[in-house]
């Protein structure tokens, strides 16, 4: 059997441009995103499944879904 490793998708926040409004926090179904210090949103990579809900919600459109090597 061939072991096919699928690429995983994760959310990445452009921290320089994030306004820390917290819109992404509200829509994340896995509670993987938070705004701990009011400066920028932080994604818990271990929890993120890359669904893209936060990216769609972000009013500044500064969240990107990228493929990462597992």
């Amino acid at each position, binding site marked *: 059997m061939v072991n096919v490793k699928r690429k995983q998708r994760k959310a990445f926040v452009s921290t320089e*441009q994030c*306004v*820390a*409004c*917290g*819109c992404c*926090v509200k829509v994340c179904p896995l509670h993987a995103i938070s*705004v*701990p*210090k*009011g*400066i920028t949103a932080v994604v818990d990579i271990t929890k993120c499944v890359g669904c893209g809900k936060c990216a*769609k*919600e*972000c*009013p*500044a*459109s*500064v969240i990107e879904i990228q493929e990462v090597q597992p």
Partner: protein
Amino acid sequence: MKKKWYDYLWIASLLYLILGFFNILFAWLGLLCFFIPLIISVVQKNKGYCNRYCGRGQLFSLVGGRFGLSRKKDIPKWMKSKWFRYGFLIFFFAMFFLMLWNTYLVFSGATGLKQTVTLLWTFKLPWHWAYHGTILHPGVAQFAFGFYSVMLTSTILGFVTMILFKPRSWCVYCPMGTMTQLICKARNKE
């Protein structure tokens, strides 16, 4: 997710705008939207107000998101740039102090009470129906007219960008959001 009490604060924001049509003195309540975010950012060092309690943000989410009154397009790059956000904050502050100055003039007796609401810092709308006199100084009413102008103007700007871009586009350039983020940056550096 189970809704919490603070998920209904959009009702308060909506009520605030409506009350201003009946009695302008209710505009004073808007100071809560100024002081609560500042206190949270200074004491708790986070943007808990934006993240949880902002009724205006919830209102935009509801109207733009749930009711779909939004194109849901990306906001232009310049609108999320630092210079625009900080520039808007400074402009907003300048207009706020101008409003305080006008209030001072009425308190000092230099000018009389103007029963108008100024939209977009330019258009003066007659608003006499919302003022029935007060036992307090007319300056108290002048501040209410000025503050309500600030709140109504920013709500209109918020609704325009909600329709053009994403529902909560206002959050990107909201002066209170920019200010509390700056406070958080300073407070978390210590």
